[in-house]
């Protein structure tokens, strides 16, 4: 893979050129958090952003969109929400998230909406620095070797730019004079030092190797009932997860006529309706059973099928869950280590 150099001051001129080709999406501030948004003013881009509230999958499959329009003539697929996009500033863990979703949507049934959006979106990754919630080193998703068109490692005064695809190369060729083809020994050393420091900056880790066995061994553990008692079933962990991809479909018929739309929205296996079938039977009526399903998928089932967990260490579930049910607290509890969490405290406080 070819690696070139871009001076810091040349980034905006480069973005200027490429944003003429497609909408440029990048992380910007929302309150004290970050979100991916279309940007015109590049100074809004958060170069040192942490995780965005929603993962980048929202750019490929929005939380709600119309799949079909329906008329007397029949169904017509609606791809109107899919436009050419460039996604800049996506971190390694989130690129891994997309690679996991690729597995998911390319299984037996290809998902045309996802695949079409993937085809139309260029991935311009950006290096990041872990905060207290990140654990991508535990999932080995802090580094990325595939799944991007360009990848920028931010080294104070300059970027090292990995060219990951011919489309990425085409972008560079739009303004090659902005880049330096030759790297100095000093540049390489700066990168190595940065990488070593970054690896040391992870504040906690989780032993994922033990997780599949622990999920098996502790499947009947009272721990799950405690979690179920506390869980608000708000679906937040699932909605913010970069590797979750379940959805539901709703009909939207128009009054009077025969026209309508078929709408698709994000679903979550942690919600009550998810496992309900015709006739009203529900296979996972209990919240504890749904949490077990989610964690089995993340920490066990995906590993046995694809050799890696369906968790990329982004820390979104840790930030999102109001009652502290997340990969960290659940993972630690499975390991027999007690973390301070609301779901542990709640059971001590409720006397009723």
């Amino acid at each position, binding site marked *: 893979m070819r690696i070139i150099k871009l001076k810091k001051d040349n980034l905006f001129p480069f973005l200027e050129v490429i944003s003429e080709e497609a909408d440029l999406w990048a992380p910007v501030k*929302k309150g004290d958090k970050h979100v991916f948004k279309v940007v015109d003013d590049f100074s809004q881009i958060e170069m040192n952003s942490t995780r965005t509230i929603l993962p980048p999958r929202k750019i490929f499959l929005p939380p709600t969109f119309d799949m079909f329009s329906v008329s007397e003539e029949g169904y017509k697929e609606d791809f109107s929400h899919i436009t050419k996009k460039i996604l800049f500033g996506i971190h390694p863990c989130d690129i891994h998230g997309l690679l996991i979703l690729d597995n998911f949507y390319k299984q037996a049934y290809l998902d045309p909406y996802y695949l079409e959006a993937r085809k139309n979106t260029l991935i311009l990754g950006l290096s990041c620095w872990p905060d207290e919630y990140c654990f991508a080193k535990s999932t080995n998703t802090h580094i990325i070797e595939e799944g991007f068109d360009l990848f920028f490692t931010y080294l104070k005064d300059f970027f090292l730019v990995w060219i990951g695809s011919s489309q990425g190369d085409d972008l560079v060729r739009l303004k090659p004079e902005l880049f330096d083809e030759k790297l100095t020994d000093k540049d390489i050393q700066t990168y190595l030092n940065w990488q070593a420091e970054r690896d040391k900056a992870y504040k906690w880790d989780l032993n994922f190797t033990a997780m599949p066995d622990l999920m098996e061994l502790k499947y009947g553990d009272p721990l799950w009932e405690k979690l179920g*008692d*506390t*869980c*608000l079933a*708000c679906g937040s962990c699932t909605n913010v997860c970069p590797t979750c991809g379940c959805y539901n479909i709703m009909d939207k018929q128009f009054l009077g006529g025969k026209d309508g739309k078929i709408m698709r929205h994000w679903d979550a296996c942690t919600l009550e309706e998810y496992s309900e079938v015709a006739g009203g039977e529900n296979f996972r009526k209990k919240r504890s059973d749904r949490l077990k399903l989610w964690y089995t998928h993340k920490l066990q089932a995906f590993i046995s099928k694809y050799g890696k967990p369906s968790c990329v260490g982004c820390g979104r579930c840790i930030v999102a869950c*109001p009652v502290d049910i997340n990969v960290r607290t659940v993972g630690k509890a499975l390991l027999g280590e007690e973390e301070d969490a609301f779901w542990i405290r709640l059971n001590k406080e*409720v006397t009723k």
Partner: protein
Amino acid sequence: MEKGSKEKLKIGIYELTGCAGDALLILDCEKELIDMFKAADIQSFLMAKSDNIDGELDVALVEGSVSTEREKEELLDIRKRAKTVVAIGICACFGGIQAAFLDKKDWEKNFKKVYGDKKMTHTKPLQSKPIDAYIKVDYYLPGCPIGKEQFLSTFNRILRGHPPELYRFSVCVECKWNENDCLLNKGIPCLGPITRAGCGSICINHNLPCVGCWGPVEEANLTSEFHLLREKGFDYDFIKKKMANFSGTGMADFLGELKGEKK
């Protein structure tokens, strides 16, 4: 009567105690209103027309809670005439603000505070209750007021003989879809996790906490929400009041249980 209207479903839209916000919302569907009147035979809709007929109905949409003897009789009569009854809006579904006093004694005390010893001649006042306190309700369409999109979809599905298809999860789901930062996690008392979605998390989109005006979601974990708010520093009375404000009757069992608990 329009030709061919015999095959159309006969619909009645009724208002009991409430702000009439749901009837107003139906009227506010300006773009779809003509289609609505074309697709259904709207027999009674006080806010929209004067030639109302109180006959047999296929579907009755009822807004508001029952707070007088006369309303109770009217409701019983609607139930007798209608094949299907749909409760529309928080007041019909869960009692609304006027049903915040769950305890009969509390209600009596407050009634006296407002009306004193005045004698009611028009009709006998009753402690305000959702309509399912008196009749069987087939479908519930919550909201304060109901949402335009959900109403049109429900109305349309009912005309085609299908049950409503509503979001059955909490406000948090829509709130996440709108990529809001969680207010609960910032220590703001938000009822999102226990409240039914459909509003598009409109309050939180504007940085205001959810007040629960769409009523409790089917699976509301009231115990966990209650203790979470306690831990965030809110006192017992505040939380109880907040929970009971719009849909106390939907949480009556839980709030009743809390009564015995130590403050």
